[in-house]
C-alpha cells in the first residue's frame, strides 16, 4: 500500500503552497501586479497538479475494491500536561474529489479575476486574500482532526470576511463582511462546543487514528450509547452542535442571512467563496462527520441528528427558492439559489446519501461558479450594473457569455440528460423519496425544483432577452454605454466551466454510478438497464415535468410582457402581497434587527449602565460615607441653629451677631480661644479637686 502513497507525503503541500503565496503577497507592495499574478496562479496550478495526482492515486488504490481507501498522517501539535494534542492530515476519496474541484475552480476563478480586477488599485491584496482563502479551504479538506478542521474553518471565515469587505470604502460592504463573520460565528460557537464536548467524551479529536479515532467504531459506539440532557444520545447532541457550524457556513435557515449580503464582495469572490467552495464547507463537514451523525441509526431506525439535517435542508431549499423568485439583483438571485441548493445537499446528507450530496456539491460548484462568473461578465459588460430590470437583450451583445450562462442555468434548473445538475438532483430526489422518516422533505424538494426552474428562467428572460433597457432609461449616447463582451481572459474560464458542468454528469448517472462507488467503496459497472427501472424512470419523468412547468410558467409570465425598472414585476401585478414579502426576503433580517440585535444593544447598554451607575455608584457610596455623615451633621446643625432663630429670641440674635464677630477667619484667633479654654478647664478641674 505504501508505494501507492508516495504522493501522500506531499499532502501537506496542497494547502501550504497557496499559504506561502499569500504570505509573500501580503508583505509585498501594491504595485507588484505581475508578481502577484505569477505567484497566485503558480501556487494554484501547483496545488491543482498535486490534487490531481492525489486523486489519481486514490482511484488507483481504490481499484474497484469494496474497501474505502483512507490514509491518515497524524502528528503532535503540542503537549499540555501529560496529554499530547494531535492533529493530522487525511486522504480519502471524499476529500480527494473535493481537492480537485476546489483547486480547479479556484484556478479558473483566479484567471478570471486577473481580468475582472485589472483596474482595482488593491490588485495585489486581492490575490493575497484569494490565496489565503485557497490555503484555508484546502487545509480544511485535508485535515484529519476536528481541531485542525475548525482552525481552517475559521480561517476560511476570515478570508471570506476580508474579501466581502474588500471594497471597504463602501459602508454596505463593510457591514456585510461584519454580518457574515458574526453570523457564521454564531454557528461556530455550536461547532466549538460540539468539538470540546467530543474531546471530553472521547479524548481525541482525530477522525481516523488506527481504530482510536473519533469516527471509528470504538468511539462511535461509546457516543451512541451514552446519553445526555433530554435523553439525547451523546453522538446526536454533539452532531447537532457541529451541524450548527455547518448551518452558519452553508447558509442554512435561520443563519442564511449573511450569504445574500456577502454579494457585496467582488464577483469572483462571490463565485469562488460564496457559491462554489466555502459555503460547501458545511456540507463537507457533515459528510466528513457523517458516521457521527449516523451513529444512532439502527437497521430500521433513522438517526435523530440526520432527521434534523434533512428538515433544515428541505426547509431551506424551498424557503430560499421562494425568495429568489422576487429578487432583482442578479447576484442576489444567485445567492438565494445557492442557499437553496445547499439545502438540497443537506437533504441528501440527511437521507444518507453522502455520495449524492458530494456529487451535487461538486456539480453545483461548477455551474454556480459558471453562473457567478457569467454574472460578473454581465456586470462588467453593463458598467457595474447589477439590477436585472435595467438589462435585457444582452444575448446580442455578449454571445459567449450568453451561451455559457445558458448552460449554467440549464444545469442549475435541472434540464434533463445532458447536464450534471439533472443527474445530481435526480439522485437526491430519489433518495429523499425513499426516506423512511417522512415523505414531506421529498415534496418540499420537488417544490424547490419547480421554483429553481422558474426563477432561473425569469432571470434569463430579464437579462438576455427583450431589449436593452438601460438605453431607454438613461441616456442618448447609446453607442458608448452599449454593453460589450468581456475579454478572453474572462470568457475562457467560462467556457471551461461550462464544459465541466456538462461533462461531469457522465460519472454519476444511475447507469454508471462511478462517483457513488468512488466515495462509498465498491466497483462501478456500466448498466444502461438501471436507467429504466420503474422507480428511477418515474421520478425522472416527474422531475422533467416539474422543470418544464417551471420554465414554462416563467416564460409565460415574463417573456411576453414588457419589463423594466418602471414597470412592476409581472408576478407583483398578480400577487402584490406575496411578491412584496418575498422581495423583502420574508422579513428575516427585519426580525433579527428587531429581536437579536436590539437585544444585544440593549444588553450592552444595560451592562454599561450597571457599571456606571450601580457598581460605580456603590463604590462612590462607600467611599463617600464619611462625607455623607458630615453633611448630615451639618444639616442637623443648621436646622437646630435656624430653629433657634425662628423662635424669635431677639437677645439670642444679637448675641449671636456678637459671637459671629469672633469668627475672624484667623486660625490663630481660634487657637487663642482654645488656649484660653485650656486654662479655664485646668482651673476648673483644680477647683473641683479643692471642692
Amino acid at each position: 500500500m505504501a508505494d501507492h502513497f508516495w504522493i501522500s507525503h506531499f499532502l501537506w503541500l496542497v494547502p501550504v503552497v497557496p499559504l506561502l503565496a499569500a504570505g509573500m503577497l501580503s508583505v509585498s507592495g501594491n504595485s507588484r501586479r505581475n508578481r502577484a499574478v505569477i505567484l497566485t496562479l503558480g501556487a494554484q496550478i501547483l496545488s491543482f497538479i498535486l490534487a490531481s495526482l492525489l486523486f489519481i492515486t486514490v482511484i488507483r488504490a481504490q481499484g474497484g475494491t469494496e474497501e474505502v481507501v483512507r490514509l491518515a498522517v497524524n502528528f503532535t501539535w503540542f503537549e499540555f500536561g501529560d496529554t499530547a494534542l494531535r492533529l493530522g492530515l487525511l486522504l480519502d476519496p471524499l476529500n480527494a474529489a473535493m481537492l480537485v474541484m476546489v483547486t480547479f475552480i479556484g484556478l479558473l476563478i483566479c484567471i478570471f479575476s486577473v481580468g475582472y480586477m485589472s483596474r482595482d488599485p488593491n490588485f495585489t491584496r486581492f490575490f493575497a486574500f484569494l490565496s489565503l482563502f485557497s490555503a484555508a479551504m484546502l487545509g480544511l479538506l485535508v485535515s484529519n482532526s476536528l481541531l485542525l478542521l475548525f482552525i481552517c474553518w475559521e480561517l476560511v471565515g476570515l478570508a471570506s470576511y476580508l474579501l466581502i469587505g474588500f471594497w471597504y470604502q463602501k459602508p454596505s460592504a463593510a457591514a456585510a463582511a461584519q454580518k457574515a463573520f458574526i453570523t457564521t460565528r454564531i454557528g461556530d460557537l455550536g461547532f466549538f462546543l460540539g468539538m470540546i464536548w467530543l474531546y471530553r467524551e472521547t479524548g481525541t479529536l482525530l477522525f481516523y487514528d488506527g481504530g482510536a479515532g473519533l469516527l471509528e467504531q470504538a468511539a462511535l459506539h461509546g457516543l451512541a450509547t451514552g446519553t445526555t440532557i433530554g435523553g439525547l444520545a451523546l453522538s446526536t447532541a454533539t452532531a447537532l452542535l457541529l451541524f450548527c457550524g455547518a448551518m452558519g457556513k452553508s447558509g442554512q435557515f435561520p443563519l442564511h442571512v449573511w450569504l445574500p449580503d456577502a454579494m457585496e464582495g467582488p464577483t469572483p469572490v462571490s463565485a469562488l467563496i460564496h457559491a462554489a467552495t466555502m459555503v460547501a464547507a458545511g456540507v463537507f463537514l457533515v459528510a466528513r462527520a457523517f458516521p457521527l451523525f449516523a451513529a444512532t441509526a439502527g437497521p430500521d431506525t433513522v438517526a435523530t441528528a440526520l432527521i434534523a439535517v434533512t428538515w433544515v435542508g428541505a426547509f431551506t431549499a424551498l424557503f430560499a427558492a421562494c425568495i429568489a423568485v422576487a429578487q432583482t439583483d442578479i447576484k442576489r438571485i444567485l445567492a438565494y439559489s445557492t442557499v437553496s441548493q445547499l439545502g438540497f445537499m443537506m437533504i441528501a446528507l440527511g437521507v444518507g446519501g453522502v455520495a449524492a450530496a458530494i456529487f451535487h456539491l461538486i456539480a453545483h460548484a461548477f455551474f454556480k461558479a459558471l453562473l457567478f462568473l457569467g454574472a460578473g461578465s454581465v456586470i462588467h459588460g453593463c458598467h457595474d450594473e447589477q439590477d436585472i430590470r435595467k438589462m435585457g437583450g444582452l444575448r446580442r451583445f455578449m454571445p459567449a457569455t450568453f451561451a455559457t450562462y445558458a448552460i449554467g442555468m440549464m444545469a442549475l434548473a435541472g434540464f434533463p440528460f445532458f447536464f450534471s445538475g439533472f443527474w445530481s438532483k435526480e439522485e437526491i430526489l430519489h433518495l429523499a423519496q425513499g426516506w423512511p422518516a417522512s415523505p414531506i422533505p421529498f415534496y418540499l424538494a420537488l417544490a424547490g425544483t419547480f421554483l429553481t426552474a422558474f426563477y432561473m428562467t425569469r432571470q434569463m428572460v430579464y437579462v438576455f432577452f427583450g431589449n436593452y433597457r438601460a438605453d431607454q432609461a438613461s441616456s442618448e449616447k447609446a453607442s458608448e454605454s452599449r454593453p460589450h463582451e468581456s475579454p478572453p481572459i474572462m470568457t475562457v474560464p467560462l467556457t471551461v466551466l461550462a464544459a465541466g458542468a456538462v461533462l461531469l454528469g457522465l460519472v454519476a448517472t444511475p447507469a454508471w454510478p462511478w462517483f457513488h462507488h468512488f466515495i462509498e467503496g465498491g466497483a462501478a459497472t456500466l448498466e444502461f438497464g438501471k436507467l429504466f427501472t420503474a422507480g428511477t424512470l418515474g421520478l425522472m419523468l416527474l422531475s422533467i415535468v416539474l422543470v418544464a412547468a417551471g420554465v414554462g410558467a416563467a416564460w409565460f409570465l415574463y417573456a411576453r410582457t414588457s419589463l423594466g425598472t418602471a414597470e412592476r414585476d409581472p408576478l407583483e401585478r398578480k400577487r402584490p402581497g406575496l411578491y412584496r414579502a418575498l422581495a423583502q426576503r420574508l422579513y428575516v433580517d427585519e426580525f433579527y434587527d428587531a429581536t437579536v440585535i436590539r437585544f444585544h444593544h440593549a444588553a450592552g447598554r444595560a451592562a454599561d449602565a450597571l457599571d456606571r451607575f450601580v457598581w460605580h455608584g456603590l463604590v462612590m457610596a462607600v467611599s463617600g460615607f464619611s462625607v455623607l455623615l458630615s453633611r448630615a451633621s451639618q444639616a442637623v446643625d443648621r436646622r437646630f441653629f435656624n430653629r433657634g432663630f425662628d423662635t424669635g429670641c431677639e437677645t439670642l440674635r444679637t448675641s449671636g451677631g456678637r459671637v459671629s464677630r469672633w469668627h475672624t477667619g484667623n486660625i490663630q484667633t481660634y487657637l487663642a480661644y482654645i488656649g484660653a479654654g485650656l486654662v479655664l478647664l485646668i482651673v476648673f478641674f483644680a477647683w473641683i479637686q479643692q471642692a
Partner: protein
Amino acid sequence: MLTLEFFLIISAALFSLGFAAVLTRRNVIMILIGIELMLSSANLNFIAFWRFGPDPDALTGVLFVLFSIAVAAAEAAVGLALIILIYRHFKSTNTFNFSLLNG
C-alpha cells in the same frame, strides 16, 4: 536628684513657647515652627513618663515617640508642601493675607 517634674516643666515651657509662636506670629512658617516645638514637648513628656513610670521595660513611651516622630515627619512634609502651595497661590506667607475662613 532629677525628678519627673523637672522634665515636665521643661516640656511645659517648650509647649508654651511653641503655643505663643502659633498665636502671635503672622508667618505660616513660624506657625509651623511653633507646632514642631509643641510636638517635641509632647514627645519629651512621653519619654519622661516612661522613664519615671512604673514599668520602663514595657517600652511603651519609647515606641509611642517613635511613631510620633514618624507622624511628625509626615506632618511636616505635608505642612510644608501646603505652605508652598499657599505661597504659590497668595504670593505670601502671612496669615493676614489669607483669612478665607472669615465668618
